């Protein structure tokens, strides 16, 4: 069994910072803080949640099928692996 996972900080481009709960995806973390973010499928195939990953790294919880550019990521199926800075669409 792995150690209880560390809590990381998700910072939005407009300087709002939230704590990430290791159980949640980035999308779920944002929703829990009532930060609206566009989504459809919530499983990585539609691209509706496509956002910019400005700093840091994320791990995918499922193999993402949606098209994402090099500086982008899918909040619906990722967890941070360190503090991250992102820019989302609402």
């Amino acid at each position, binding site marked *: 069994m792995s150690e209880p996972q560390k809590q990381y900080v998700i910072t939005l481009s407009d300087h709002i910072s939230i704590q990430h709960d290791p159980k949640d995806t980035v999308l779920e973390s944002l929703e829990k803080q009532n930060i609206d973010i566009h989504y*459809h499928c919530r499983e990585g195939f539609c691209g509706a949640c496509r956002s910019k990953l400005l700093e840091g790294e994320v791990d995918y919880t499922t193999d993402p099928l949606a098209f994402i550019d090099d500086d982008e990521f899918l909040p619906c199926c990722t967890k941070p692996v360190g503090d991250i800075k992102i820019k989302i669409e609402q």
Partner: protein
Amino acid sequence: MKYTTFNPKRTNPLVEPMFFGNPVNVARYDQQKHPIFEKLIEKQISFFWRPEEVDVSKDRVDFQSLSESEKHIFISNLKYQTLLDSVQGRSPNIAFLPILSLPELETWTETWSFFETIHSRSYTHILRNLFADPSPIFDDIVANEHIKKRAGDISKYYDDLIFLTQLWQTQGEGVHTIDGVAYTVTMRELKKKLFLCMNSVNALEAIRFYVSFACTFAFAERELMEGNSKIIRLIARDENLHLTSTQHILNLWIKGKDDPEMAEIAEELKDEAKAIFMLAVDQEKEWASYLFEQGSMIGLNKDILCQYVEYIANHRMSAIGMGQPFDISTNPLPWMNNYLNSDNVQVAPQESEISSYLVGQIDSEVNADDFGDFDL
């Protein structure tokens, strides 16, 4: 180059371009040049559903209670969707299969088209439930000016590509005169037609369904026409996947990760491609005006629908390097998200039933030749 259903030449599909290389010979999926298409096939097949498994019988009562303007909105949208899926159920096969060079992309195309035929079948399922004779509805699809106008723009790019491909495959490159019109067939010209066609398909999958999706889900928000809404949710899930596939194809070209000539063409035809998308946006807005010309429906009006089209267009255009041309940054219909998510990982506030459970659900109005008098 003449088309062959089994190219006897030994080819290496790992180095072929997506289109206009050697025709595919062996249908093998153990290795892929572009693994994304294999993954899309698997995902799409995992979504398999049958319209008959969704109970639409209660919609008949709801439909009778709708106002005349709401009936107009509901039926017009079904007509338009029927048109779109009629085109999509055949065109990717006819236009793309003869010029494809990768087994995974060939099978993706066939899988994609097959699901469009499921969508078409679901419209018959819905309409048969609402009308003793759905013929007048189907007949109007080829008579209605508002639908015909869109049909022309949607089929045009497919038809151009198909025709030039036929000339090329029967006569080869050169200038060919057919019925007094001279056509110049070169590989460059074929690839240009393909690029424009793919952009037109991408725009179709990206935005052309969303006005009618919004209307459907606005009815569902009022607990009306919920059988229809369940079907449309399943369709929307498939459409999201189709859109992903065209975005991948376009980006593989644009980013020079496939045929280098297609990267040049993408640059050369950038403005034309964008114009195709913008025209689709305009047409969807016009469609919204047509829908509401006899009166509005609760929860939706023309302006908010047009904003939603722009919002969706911004997102989808930026995915293929077209930027975000519209000045709108927040979703004007946030509740749409709840209907457009897939079930497995959702926290759906509105929906009590999960659509994957519907597979296997027994119709509450069972025909004798269906499942017998089995009851839930």
